[in-house]
């Protein structure tokens, strides 16, 4: 039964992953990728990691919806109504990808994997993860936190074209910053 569910999830994930690079409509492309990643979350749950699986689903849904917005904002042909090719070096990429898959598959099938160790997995794997992140893996957790914080700062610096002189005036004389759009702490929309 477990194997059957896993097979369905794996086949769906691979099909959807393939459709990502076949479909024309950007909305469909994004949601094909979402379906593939939700299947990955399902596999993760099936393998006994319910917390990580559900979090993966939660995160990818939010990510993909935001991604759809960016795709449609930047792509020339977001709805795929005019068929056009947006690829380069297609056959080279195919050859490399096929080569990588064959090498990985050979490794997977040829390496003598060790047998499953005697110990049973803990009853609550979420607890195991939390204890590790707050204990032995504290350094990993701290680094991940710092990476996320610097990502937030860097992404905002890169994405915004306006600095404090645009917001507060050339002499920084405004008390309330002036922004083109409301929704922050600025003075627009009031």
């Amino acid at each position, binding site marked *: 039964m477990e194997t059957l569910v896993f097979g369905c999830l794996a086949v769906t994930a691979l099909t959807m992953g393939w459709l990502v690079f076949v479909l024309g409509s950007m909305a469909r492309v994004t949601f094909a990728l979402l379906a593939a990643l939700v299947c990955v979350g399902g596999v993760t749950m099936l393998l006994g990691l*319910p917390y990580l699986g*559900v979090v993966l689903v939660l995160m990818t*849904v939010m990510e993909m919806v935001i991604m759809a917005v960016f795709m449609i904002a930047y792509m020339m042909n977001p709805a795929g*109504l005019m068929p056009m090719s947006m690829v380069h070096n297609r056959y080279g990429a195919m050859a490399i990808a096929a080569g990588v898959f064959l090498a990985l598959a050979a490794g997977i099938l040829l390496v003598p994997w060790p047998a499953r160790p005697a110990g049973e997995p803990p009853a609550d794997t979420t607890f195991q993860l939390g204890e590790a992140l707050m204990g032995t893996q504290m350094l990993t957790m701290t680094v991940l936190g710092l990476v996320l914080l610097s990502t937030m700062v860097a992404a905002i610096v890169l994405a915004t074209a306006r600095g404090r002189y645009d917001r507060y005036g050339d002499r920084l004389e405004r008390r309330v910053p002036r922004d083109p759009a*409301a929704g922050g702490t600025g003075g627009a929309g009031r």
Partner: protein
Amino acid sequence: MTEGTAPAWAVVATPVLLTLLAMAARSGDALLAAREAGRPVTAGAALRPLLDIPRLLAAQPRRTPVLDRLLWRTGVLVVPVSAVLSVLVLPLGHGAAPAGLSVGVVWFNAMEVMTWAGLWLAGWAPNAAFALVGGYRFLAQALAYELPLMFALIAPATAAGSLRVGDIVAAQHGLWFVVWMPVAFAAYLLAVPAFAFFGPLRYPAAPDIAGGVLGEVSGPDRLMLTAGRWLWLAAGAAMAVPLFLGGGAGPLLPGWAWSLVKTLAVLAALVWAGRSLPVIRADRYLELAWVVLLPLTIAQALVPAVVAMAG
């Protein structure tokens, strides 16, 4: 208590109960509308909106040019289906939940995030300007409500030391979480109409854009999407009870009855507030959510964390 498995019929009973709650909310809303309009507040006024169900099932669907039918149907179905899936982790009273997932709170959150995908698709797929504006409006609103909601959900889970909804109910033995987590409760209640795009937060489906995400959808699809809206309102009210209001705890009545009474009370309050408050624009709500609510909910989450450390 929380380890037991629910009987098989609970998998059917929970969705049926949720649907009944959603219908009750719809009828209550119609009664409030009748009172506002000066019409007689009768049983007929309460039942009239339910006539929409056969009417929409039989209606001829309207189509827009160059629509994306697959995505439209997906989006319209995702909203009610995820609402039903989200409540499967809720225990009825003191019993076990139909799906006693060890990560119930995260499951509810993940299902609620599914409405992001559903509503954006419902806005994008009909290839109509106002519907698309509605879809984008929901995303703006979603970015606003999601973070305070997440911290509001974390607070009771931290206090209980578990993500299982049944354990959270058990941890409130004696003192309901609403008493010492009022900020989290308020932030949660503010998020419920946001993901149900209802009342003051019906901005994605507001009348100024001709119904927004609901503007083009018709026939059975419209039934599904509007049902999803009311189902989510009911699901949000149902989740508030085990998280903050002690689940099935209460004197005299059995646990399941107390769960229902409390859910109905929360639902009634939400419907009444939805009728009484004006629509708030997403940019204003975003400012409120990120500048005011987010720091407050983080500070609120600190309280159970400190208590858990000390205790």
